[in-house]
């Protein structure tokens, strides 16, 4: 029972982090109709930036987090300017290929700057690594901190969308870009900020995840696939779906690892993607669009 609760707790914590990655994917997709294939690398860069700031420059953790998120935001904006804006009229294939190019570019840069394939960066733990017991549930204090922080980020995200002007502009543009232009919303600027916000969320997720795991340049793609699986499961157009999807992927992964074997972890995301695309094409909470011919 303790084992199961541990698995569930881990699953929920990692699931929350996947949910953040998925959120970034969904927010960008909703607004632009495009999935940024470099999203994983934006995640990775956020983590590496935080590492540099916190471990190498020795800034306090929270400050590193904020600066890394700002850095990710900037990278997201750059992605929009370079890959999306000039190519959106050429079609999806061009944008996807451009984002792939960016993803490898960033990965290569990270490898050159921070070390080769075999180098894993260890982020120091935030709190003592002893587990704590809450009733029947055993959880690492580290995980608890991360979980709470993740929830805080999600909350901030929700508040941003519902209350700030920028957030409302983004929602409006996502649902109807033409109408948004007509009421004076600067749509291409909204796209830019959307990419930025998506990247920032990914970066935050990486920084929160960093104390739990090792950082390495290829981690971007691994997290991207998990985030995408979560997004597809929840519905690529649904923000709450991304959260639900993320938690489900995280839990599924941990249970599979616990009961079948750890190598299954790598492939559980793939299983989720296949399952979702075959049986739930619009996701759990997504909406079916009306196809106008």
């Amino acid at each position, binding site marked *: 029972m303790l084992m199961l609760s541990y698995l569930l707790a881990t699953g929920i914590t990692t699931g929350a982090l996947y949910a953040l990655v998925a959120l970034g994917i969904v927010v960008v997709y909703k607004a632009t109709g495009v999935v940024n294939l470099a999203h994983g690398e934006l995640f990775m860069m956020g983590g590496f930036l935080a590492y540099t700031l916190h471990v190498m420059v020795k800034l306090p953790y929270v400050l590193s987090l904020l600066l890394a998120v700002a850095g990710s935001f900037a990278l997201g904006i750059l992605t929009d300017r370079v890959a999306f804006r000039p190519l959106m009229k050429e079609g999806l294939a061009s944008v996807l290929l451009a984002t792939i190019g960016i993803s490898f570019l960033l990965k290569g840069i990270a490898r050159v700057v921070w070390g080769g394939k075999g180098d894993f960066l260890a982020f120091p733990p935030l709190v003592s690594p002893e587990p704590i017991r809450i009733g029947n549930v055993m959880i690492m204090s580290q995980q608890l901190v991360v979980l709470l922080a993740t929830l805080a980020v999600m909350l901030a995200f929700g508040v941003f969308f519902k209350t700030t002007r920028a957030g409302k502009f983004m929602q409006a543009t996502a649902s109807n870009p033409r109408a948004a232009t007509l009421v004076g919303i600067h749509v291409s600027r909204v796209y830019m900020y959307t990419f930025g916000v998506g990247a920032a969320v990914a970066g935050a997720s990486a920084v929160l995840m960093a104390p739990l795991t090792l950082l390495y340049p290829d981690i971007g793609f691994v997290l991207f696939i998990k985030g995408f699986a979560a997004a597809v499961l929840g519905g690529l157009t649904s923000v709450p779906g991304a959260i639900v999807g993320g938690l489900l992927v995280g839990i599924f992964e941990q249970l599979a690892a616990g009961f079948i074997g750890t190598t299954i972890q790598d492939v559980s995301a793939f299983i989720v993607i296949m399952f979702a695309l075959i049986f739930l094409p619009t996701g759990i909470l997504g909406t*079916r669009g*009306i*196809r106008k*011919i």
Partner: protein
Amino acid sequence: MNSLTVSNVSVAFGGVDALSDVSVAVDAGQIVGIIGPNGAGKTTLLNVICGMNRPDRGDVTLHGTVITGWKPSRIAGLGLGRTFQTSQLFPGMTVLENLMTGLHLRGRTGLVAAAFRTPSMKREEAEMRERTLAALDFVGMRAFAGRSGTALSFGQQRVVEIVRTLIGDPTVVLLDEPAVGLSVPRVAELDTLLRRIRDERGVTLVMIEHVIRLVMGVSDRVIVMNSGHKIAEGRPDDIRRNPDVIEAYLGRQGDARRPAP
């Protein structure tokens, strides 16, 4: 004899009833016009007929065969052709190649024949080429054979598309707003062209149009749709005077076009 029958077809998209219990019977060799305000379901009706949307209820019959639920390419094989509102010329091909694609169903070359350049393949290609060049001659555009489809003017593109639709000798052709974007003299030419297609080649035409002058002028029968229902059907003169039709058009703000003077 009915060449095309739509029986009690209903289609709903996510809670919106695009078509409600619509029935249409088209005789061979007729020109049938479909008019109605935007959102009336006209394009959905064409989509259902050609197989791009499956009706929730009802059936479509072509030349006596029930084609409900068939794939569009299979229905095309029965002799149904279709044009679309927006330009559907293949931009990656020349005009000649576009037209040869129109003869796709007349050919049989597959991977193996293509790989080995069999005599039958070469014969087939030569015949197709002859037919397409003849078709281009028919509309006086042979000089454009080697041009990219995108290098033509809008009117020329429309002509090539119509030729491409007809070159495979379909028996029933669905036209979605063929006159869109054409000036008044061009519309008159289109009118003549449509009549020639019907009279000289015996093709049945089902046409959605907003240019009332054209529809009323060239159609043998007109069907009026509104909000997914067929609200009137008959000869052009009768439709003009039908009070329901007048209400449907003038009772709505926005997109209803006033008839050309």
